């Protein structure tokens, strides 16, 4: 490691000497700025250097006939200044112009700058519509993708009608990356103005059956929100989702989707959440998914973090839906693996899962009592907080005194005001509930 560091340090002067378009590919002006900031001795001096840079950029931008290439470099420097919190409103219009006029590379920087500087309610955004429309109609896939990304980042409700038909159209594009970005953009439209996309719910269902699993995966985002909003309307899809899940864990997707031996883990997580919503409080829907949930619990790979992510989600789903005693027992056992782990992340999730299981399997916390106490005494604040929450929910007439004592002792040792007020609320509620 140190050998590599020395070599990096040794090559630094060589990089720094590079001219415009040299190995580092940045202008001398930018390099000088960064070097100056690195060598500055105080915050005050750094402020002074940054202010100088901003006024230099402002002055440069007022000059006529700046080449698109030069404008691109100036905009990257503006992005840097903006990131450090300096006011660069003078640069907005130039970013817009570059997105309109530039070749591919400059257009990309222009769009980036616009998406970082502006927002959907900004008055200048309307000027972007024509540019986006042109790019969406382009035969160049990269232009289309840029347009879709910009749409997702900057669309305002007023702009939706102008762009919706074109984006909808992209759902049938031959390239899967375009279809994927189109569905993400439509998701954004849905979140902004659900009534405007009501007529295309059928199209979303078609995307669920897209030949590319990545596109199908992207559509799960929309379905998560659609189902959250109105679960009744989508109950008929329960079997579909259960089938997809079965295919995923059965290894039917290509190796591209495998991550650390787990098949498409992020897709599995989304599917499990959706199934959880569909099965909650509904016996018939739940019955359609018991088999696949059982299989998931059995198949979960736990030699890597991401396997735990799927397992955790599966346990949560089993807890959320209509109770199945065998599944619940299995899930409770799996929680044990989280709690016995040495990783605080896993113990944190174990405690959370345990908390969510309490209403359906009240005895489960008792089984893991020792570990819970250990978590309570752990120096990690986040873990402590979660365990205190679990304790609070575990309180019954037999253990209320013990638990209250614990809560009070934590109250006296913590300095965090939020935790203090939370504990006080909990203690007073318990006192009211169990007056003796």
């Amino acid at each position, binding site marked *: *490691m140190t*050998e*590599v*560091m020395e*070599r*990096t*340090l040794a*090559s630094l002067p060589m990089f720094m000497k590079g001219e415009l*378009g*040299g*190995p*580092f*590919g*940045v202008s001398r002006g930018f*390099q000088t700025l*960064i070097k100056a*900031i*690195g060598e500055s001795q105080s915050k005050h001096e750094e402020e002074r250097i940054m202010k100088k840079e901003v006024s230099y950029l402002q002055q440069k931008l007022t000059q006529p006939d700046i080449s698109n290439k030069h404008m691109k470099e100036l905009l990257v420097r503006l*992005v*840097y200044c903006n990131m*450090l*919190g300096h006011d660069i409103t003078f640069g907005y219009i130039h970013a817009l112009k570059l997105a309109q006029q530039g070749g*591919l590379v400059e257009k*990309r920087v222009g769009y*980036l700058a616009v998406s*970082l500087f502006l927002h959907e309610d900004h008055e200048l955004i309307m000027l972007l519509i024509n540019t986006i429309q042109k790019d969406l109609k382009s035969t160049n896939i990269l232009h289309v993708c840029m347009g879709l*990304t910009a749409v*997702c*980042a900057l669309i305002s409700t007023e702009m939706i009608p102008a762009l919706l038909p074109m984006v909808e159209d992209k759902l049938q594009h031959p390239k899967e*990356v375009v279809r*994927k*970005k189109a569905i*993400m*953009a439509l*998701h*954004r439209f849905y979140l902004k103005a659900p009534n405007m996309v009501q007529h295309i719910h059928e199209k979303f269902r078609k995307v669920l059956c897209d030949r590319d699993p*990545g596109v199908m995966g*992207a559509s799960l985002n929309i379905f998560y929100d659609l189902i959250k909003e109105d679960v009744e309307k989508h109950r008929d899809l329960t079997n579909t989702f259960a089938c997809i899940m079965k295919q995923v864990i059965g290894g039917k997707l290509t190796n591209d989707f495998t*991550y650390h031996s787990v098949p498409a*883990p*992020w897709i599995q997580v989304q599917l499990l959440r959706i199934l959880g919503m569909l099965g909650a409080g509904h016996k018939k829907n739940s019955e359609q998914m018991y088999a696949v949930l059982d299989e998931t619990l059995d198949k979960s790979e736990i030699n*890597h*973090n*991401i396997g735990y*992510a799927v397992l955790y*989600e599966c346990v949560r789903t089993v807890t959320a839906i209509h109770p199945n005693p065998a599944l619940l027992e299995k899930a409770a056992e799996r929680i044990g693996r989280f709690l016995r782990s040495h*990783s*605080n*992340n896993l113990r*944190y*999730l174990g405690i959370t899962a345990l908390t969510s299981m309490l209403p359906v399997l009240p005895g489960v916390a008792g089984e893991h009592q020792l570990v819970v106490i250990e978590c309570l005494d752990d*120096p*990690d604040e*986040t*873990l402590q*907080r979660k365990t205190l929450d679990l304790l609070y929910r575990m309180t019954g007439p037999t253990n209320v005194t013990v638990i209250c004592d614990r809560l009070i002792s934590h109250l006296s040792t913590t300095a965090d005001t*939020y*935790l203090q*007020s*939370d504990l006080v609320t909990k203690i007073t509620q318990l006192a009211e509930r169990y007056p003796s």
Partner: protein
Amino acid sequence: MIKAIVVFNNHGKPRLIKFFQHYNEDMQQQIVRETFHLVSKRDENVCNFLEGGRWASGKNSDSENLIGGSDYKIIYRHYATLYFVFCVDSSESELGILDLIQVFVETLDKAFENVCELDLIFHVDKVHYILQELVMGGMVLETNMTEIVTRIEEQSKLEKSEAGLTAVPERAASAVKAGLAGAPARVVSAAKNLDLPKLPSNIQLPNLPSFR
């Protein structure tokens, strides 16, 4: 939904800021400062998740609710001199996001060939393009590193042909990079196999003495 992605160094200097929900400039800077304040005082072997605190309670005395009230978490990873922080709401899987951060960092490492903090400073636009292939509109778009790298390489090819670069400067650049390529390849592959508790803190992000 992912509300914000922030990368800063051990001194709280921002290296990448991306918000998926609009906040004005001052608010953005304040969020970055407060996030830094929260993660920098964490030990190395505690949870990578943070919830609650001043913002979540909504009982903030000096400003209104920052990132969306009690329905959000901070999920972060610390690599050598950089913190990668994702602010998410409850619809995201904590462990999933942790691995997403790892995918992001591995992609950066692949795209920049042994990434270091300087790369993030000088090529913040390229880092954004990579991020755009990973997360779109606050939702996870792509999780496969190879896919993302392919997308970026398509764009770079076009960039090179548009700029009409000749072979000579490219050879010089690749010769320099080749000199550094030996050790990192092993480190990166070792890093990929590391399990979560032993975070790959030896991913190439050197703390150069002359840069803060």
